[in-house]
């Protein structure tokens, strides 16, 4: 039985819904691990694409070692672009001292991403150096680069094998960021065979030590087509701090447009 049939069968058992299943070319098993890893992420990218635009509310819960909590509420909008990387707009609702602050990001497949920050206190839009991508996003354990849209072209891949992950079977794929300013030497990503949903990511710092672990839970199928997680948990292995992301109220194809909603002008009126 070739891989494609196996995956189709698995998806019938587990997914049940009519979501499209991953498919790989015949002879996938005979390819090199590098080609396999790349194909897995390309296929994942294909499954994830076609959403046009989406909006979602995000709550971040930051916890330090002693367990004290701090919350942030954000609205996230995302737009699929035809010949370029996707666009992302993040508007901060709380803490109230920074409400109205907004981050606009244009991801590019080859070039460094463009990022602008809007500071409402002085009606000022500032361009941010993408060098800052390894810095913490809103003081959380997520770096800017973890929150950014991850284009397939930004990593080198290698399939390390398959293993059990909870009740499923997962690919374990290593990916190495190509950006010299990334804070990671590499990442190991576990994606389930049925729908290539990311279940876990292990991050390694520049000194190749384990740095963080991301676990992803509560996947739900949206619009019969897109698997989106409701919960993500990032734990910093070196500091003991953690950040939980709670994703709520996904909306797809809401009619957002590049000029109206994702230009530097739209930053000025983000609310």
């Amino acid at each position, binding site marked *: 039985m070739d891989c494609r049939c196996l995956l189709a069968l698995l998806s019938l058992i587990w997914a049940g819904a009519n979501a499209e299943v991953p498919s790989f070319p015949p002879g996938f098993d005979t390819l090199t691990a590098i080609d396999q890893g790349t194909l897995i992420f390309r296929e994942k990218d294909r499954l994830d694409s076609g959403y046009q*635009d989406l909006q979602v509310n995000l709550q971040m819960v930051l916890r330090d070692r002693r367990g004290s909590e701090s*919350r942030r509420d954000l609205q996230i909008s995302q737009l699929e672009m035809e010949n370029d990387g996707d666009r992302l707009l993040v508007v901060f609702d709380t803490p109230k001292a920074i409400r109205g602050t907004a981050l606009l990001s244009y991801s590019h497949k080859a070039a460094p991403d463009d990022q602008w920050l809007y500071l409402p206190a002085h009606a000022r839009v500032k361009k941010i150096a993408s060098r800052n991508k390894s*810095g913490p996003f809103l003081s959380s354990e997520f770096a800017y680069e973890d929150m950014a849209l991850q284009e397939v072209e930004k990593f080198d891949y290698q399939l390390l094998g398959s293993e059990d992950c909870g009740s499923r079977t997962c690919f374990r794929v290593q990916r190495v960021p190509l950006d010299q300013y990334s804070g990671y030497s590499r990442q190991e990503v576990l994606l389930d065979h049925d729908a290539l949903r990311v279940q876990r990511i292990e991050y390694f710092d520049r000194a190749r030590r384990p740095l963080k672990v991301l676990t992803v839970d509560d996947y739900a199928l949206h619009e019969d*087509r897109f698997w989106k997680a409701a919960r993500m948990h990032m734990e910093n292995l070196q500091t003991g701090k953690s950040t939980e992301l709670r994703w709520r109220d996904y909306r797809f*194809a*809401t009619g957002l447009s590049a000029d109206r909603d994702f230009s*530097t002008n739209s930053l000025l009126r983000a609310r």
Partner: protein
Amino acid sequence: MRLTCGKPLVTLWLAVTVLLASAYGPAVAASGDRLVFGSFRSEENAENWAGRLSDLFGRRVEVERVHADDGLWYRVRSAALAPREDTRLRGLAEANDISYWRSRGTLSHADTVTSSEAGAVSGGFAQKAGRSEKPETAGDSPGTPVDMGGLSYGSAGGGFEPGARPTVTRTDLDLGLQTRSYFDRGLEGQSRFQPSLSARVDFYRAWDDESQSLTFSPFMRLDSRDDERTHFDLRELFWSRVADDWELHLGFKQVFWGVTEFYHLSDIINQTDLVEDIDGEDKLGQPMAHLSLIRDWGIVDLFMLTGFRERTFPGRDGRLRPVIPVDVDRPIYESGARDKRIDGAVRWSHHWGPLNFGLYHFSGTGRDPGFELSVKGNGDLALRPVYRVIDQTGFDGQAIFGDWLFKLEAITRSGDGDRYASATGGFERTLVGALGSRADLGLIMEYIYDERGEDAYNTFFEGDLALGARWTLNDVADTQALLGVIWDTDSDEYVLSLEASRQLGASWMLLLEGRVFGGVPSANPEATLDENLRDLSRFAALQQDDYLQLEFTRYF
């Protein structure tokens, strides 16, 4: 309101507005629409048709899988199109007798196809099928070949209208308690301690698919010492109409232009609210009509500034003021229309690779006044602000290379004495995770140049070097600090400044600010008027005003 006729810029502005509006007026199609060119049972046929259309249009036409109740379909469609591209494709399609229809929200929702459109589509396809290899069509019936309207997916009952954005209303309130403590009493014995209260409301309401909105932000400060600092201002009160590629704003608004950290040279739309802070970052609401056009080649902003706002100055009992107080009640205008003159500005801004830049022209009453010495009725000396009509062309831009950020602002101004040029620029370098911590350290160096040198009456800065360090802790309290010094390399005057902030819990913020003015000759109460006047544009006036300011803000 009196129009100043004979001022060519207003006429020019109107002409430009009309021209641009006619050339680039609002397009009919909503950006983000897709054009659908038919659906097939066979993937191969769909790919063939998509390939031919791709060649014809010179852009990729996609095949999309659609899972319908009656099985799998392959739909041929364009990607989301910008309005002008949409127009081009429809033109080509019509010229080649190719039928299409518009689709919004193709995901799990049924497309809405009106009966006439559906008819046109089927007719077109019959024609198409007649002269090419036959694409399979739904049920092989020519009458319903591409009508996806009957497909039911998921939850949406019936037609899917994207952009049905809900009405949004938000109201926020900030209350601030500020205490300024000066190291010395003022030159005229003004108090060392200056507490004040401030309030700001932010109301925002958007409706009509979020294409219209109202913003209302009044601001008020009550100062215990200075009557002039006790003031109210409409920071913002404007109505907006936002379309896909243009925006119109009418009312009192804030607009900031610039990139540098220490001196905001190119910023010109709003008047400075100087009693708030001497850093020039607090601005009075400016009444305007502002049209913004979003194009592939950048954003064009057209401003009609309807009415002039006078700069605020501390009163006799206030601090951080010239030795002779400014008489804000008796300004002198060059324009006969005084503060009713209608000013105008045009700006083009764009980003290209690592570059972001803006280029503008402003024509109107300059925001920064000169001064004329006068004697008030009671015999006190006073300075009357003099507002001249100027023309200013300006540039601001920045470029990012790795962790280096280069910045430049430059202007040239006429109407204010001889034409002159001024510029400020430099770099900021960010060290991410400085010293192995979570914190970032930004190092800033800027230079300020003014062609007029020490004769520049309206600025402290003529040939100054500015150095700064920005420390961002990246902690939960979002602690940051900026330490800076601006140093006049000729006169050795300097101003040292510190700004630090930290959140206290979820709804409080603490702000610390301090300034020290130094390197100036000691004040001479017996100084002649000429000496006093010359000192207006020097830190000498502020030498006894070193202060530390603490501000608590509560957000509701």
